[in-house]
């Protein structure tokens, strides 16, 4: 692990060879969560140090009496230096010969659940810390639950401080056996349980010699090799339109970052909300047109037909997203001001900002027991399921299917604060003014209403068309 970045051989630096190696590295975004005492800062400090993510002068200022205090490497702000705790999400950067890493380092204690959700939202992997000496804590459970809630596909359960329990296998096994059913229930699948000592360095970078009973890869080895491909390539194409570029009369392009799916010139796409179809003419970038576009590239699409498309619209292909004005969502509440169904909020979903309110609070989730509890509101750092109603149509996917078109933030209209984050569960039933519902109302009595709900969009558009034709006959 010593040779982290060694581009020069015999004193000669070959930039092309070096860049080739560098360009072959992909990016893994991960998050850690841990409480004040379970050694998270020490673990991260050691990873930064051993993967050379820390600079000499930073190491020097983290030294106390000749010894590096790894925790000091990562504690940034004065307030937390004074309190000796980390109080906000901090981002760390390090690299190995195989990968570059962006680590969202989030604090552990109860009142900062919101920071954990923030760090987890962009992560592909979560490291959950447990303290071998103290056993499984509610904090570790909560961290795992929130990471799973935010849809992180990969989990490492780092059982730290093994040195304090003489590296005994039964301690590790006990925590693993106790934690596994919880993780299963929280939908944190295939977690990698790993015994380590951040302080002594066991199983962080090098495999530990003091735990011969454990044969799995070290933490860094695992991070280097874990498969990070999400399912965003296989999902249907989605691009929220950020803006329209019209530098002259001949060019009209729609800018956006591809959220999911693969697109090529000639592919048929659907523009929403208009429902108009066209074909992709070009995938334009500064570096030339692309033959294929895929996530997470930022591109500009031009289409074969002149269609009215603007910011906030969605360009989609394949199975279309659902048109919805009301939907069920899991929410993580951030604001000091609790959820208030009478309050005006804004939903920002993809590139679309619309007025909204919370129609109903279904229940609160106890993130430790995983039980649901009755609730009429949500307070800061609470998680619950609610029904949101928006004043205009959104085009949504389930968060489980698409992390970018299935997520939104809730903004308090009065204070402008980001009040909550939402992960969409489904379009609400029996509500909303979508085409299928209108038709259902119109032909009530002739067709069972249930048959018209949750129609795929194509059918919904057909239904709307049908409604138009029926209007003259049945409109009341």
């Amino acid at each position, binding site marked *: 692990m010593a040779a982290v*970045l*060694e*581009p*020069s051989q015999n004193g000669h*630096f070959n*930039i092309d060879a*070096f*860049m080739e190696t*560098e*360009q072959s*590295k992909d*990016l893994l975004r991960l998050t850690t969560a841990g409480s004040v005492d379970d050694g998270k800062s020490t673990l991260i400090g050691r990873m930064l140090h051993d993967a*050379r993510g820390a*600079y*000499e002068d*930073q190491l020097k200022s983290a030294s106390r009496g000749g010894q590096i205090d790894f925790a000091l490497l*990562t*504690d*940034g*702000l004065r*307030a937390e*230096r004074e309190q000796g705790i980390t109080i*906000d*999400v901090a*981002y*760390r*950067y390090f*690299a190995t010969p195989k990968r570059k890493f962006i680590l969202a380092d989030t604090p552990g204690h109860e009142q900062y659940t919101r*920071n954990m*959700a*923030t760090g987890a*939202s*962009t992560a592909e992997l979560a490291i959950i810390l447990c303290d071998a000496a103290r056993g499984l804590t509610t904090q570790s459970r909560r961290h795992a639950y929130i990471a799973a809630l935010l849809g992180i596909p990969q989990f490492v359960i780092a059982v730290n401080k093994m040195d304090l329990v003489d590296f005994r296998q039964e301690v590790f096994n006990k925590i693993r056996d106790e934690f596994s059913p919880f993780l299963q229930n929280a939908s944190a699948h295939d977690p990698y349980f790993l015994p380590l000592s951040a302080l002594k360095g066991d199983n962080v970078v090098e495999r530990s010699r003091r735990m011969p009973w454990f044969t799995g890869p070290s933490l860094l080895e695992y991070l280097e090799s874990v498969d990070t*491909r999400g399912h965003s*390539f*296989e999902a249907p194409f989605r691009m929220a339109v*950020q803006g329209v*570029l*019209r*530098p002259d009369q001949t*060019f009209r392009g729609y800018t956006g*970052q591809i959220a999911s799916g*693969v697109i090529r010139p000639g592919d048929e796409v659907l523009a929403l909300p208009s429902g108009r179809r066209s074909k992709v003419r070009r995938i*334009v*970038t*500064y570096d030339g047109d692309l033959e*294929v576009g895929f996530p*997470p*590239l*930022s591109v500009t699409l031009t289409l074969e037909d002149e269609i009215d498309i603007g910011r906030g619209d969605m360009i989609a292909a394949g199975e279309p997203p659902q048109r919805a004005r009301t939907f069920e969502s899991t929410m993580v509440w951030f604001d000091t001001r609790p959820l208030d169904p009478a309050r005006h909020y*804004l939903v920002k*979903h*993809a*590139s679309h900002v619309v007025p909204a309110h919370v129609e109903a609070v279904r229940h609160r989730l106890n993130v430790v027991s995983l039980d649901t509890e009755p609730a009429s509101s949500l307070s800061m750092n609470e998680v619950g399921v609610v029904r949101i109603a928006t004043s205009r149509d959104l085009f949504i996917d389930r968060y489980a299917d698409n992390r*970018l078109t299935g997520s939104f*933030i809730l903004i308090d209209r009065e204070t*402008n*604060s*980001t009040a909550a*984050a939402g992960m969409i569960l489904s379009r609400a039933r029996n509500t909303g003014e979508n085409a299928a519902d209108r038709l259902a109302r119109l032909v009530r009595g002739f067709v069972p209403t249930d048959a018209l709900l949750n129609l795929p969009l194509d059918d919904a558009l057909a239904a709307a068309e049908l409604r138009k034709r029926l209007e003259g006959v049945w409109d009341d």
Partner: protein
Amino acid sequence: MAWKISHLQALEAESIHIIREVAAEFQRPVMLYSIGKDSSVMVRLAQKAFHPGPIPFPLLHVDTTYKFKEMITFRDNFAAELGLNLIVHSNTAALEAGANPFRLGTERCCGLLKTQSLLDGLREGNFDAAFGGARRDEEKSRAKERIFSFRDRLGQWDPKNQRPELWNIFNSRVEPGESIRVFPLSNWTELDVWQYIHVENIPIVPLYLAKPRRMLVRGNSLILPELDFVQPQPGDKFETVKCRMRSLGCSPCTGAIRSDADTVPKIIAELVAVRKSERENRVIDHDREGSMELKKREGYF
């Protein structure tokens, strides 16, 4: 089926997304342009975000008038070649009163010529969003900075009152007088920036490249004596040293490093070998521990 993209492509895509969001959601965005390598990268990303159209917002340079001469030459050529709408703002009142780092001390000088001048420049332009090239890997207090960093009416930053940021969704709601600082390079490291400059062939100020320069040597510091008020003190000596700047600022307050790196690849090689953070040679950061956080609370970028 998966097309793999490099970390640089991933970072570029993220930055372009951020820049486009700001252009769409704010009334009067501006890009702070410091002439340094990070600014050069940021401008390239803005070009990419709106290609084939022009960059739809102006650039603002807060000029202390104590910048290296080569920086100003570079700035003017760069803006002319790219057809950028560049605004230059200085705190002329403080300068006329004789503000300089030797009379006032580094901290107060920065406060007037950088922080105050920046806030004035933003207010005069009525800008509600300002892009900055800061990166989270630069300094510990920046590791926690949001990509959209909320500033109150006085331009102040409150580390405890920042908006949570999830996924790639940014809350750009501000009241009149409030603003957002936006850091599209948040997730880039210094090595990423240099690699991108190399791959994209982005122009940089020649001061970044090593060459023999006549320097004022003061202890471990190498100062380029460009200004009249930079005078040798007892123990100082003039020496021709092969050196370069690792970051660019005001000539009296920015130290050079001894280096043979006279090309971008050599800088990258040096960066991989030398394990010191780039701000180490910035004299200003040694004022007192945690000084960057203090400056930021007061509105410094």
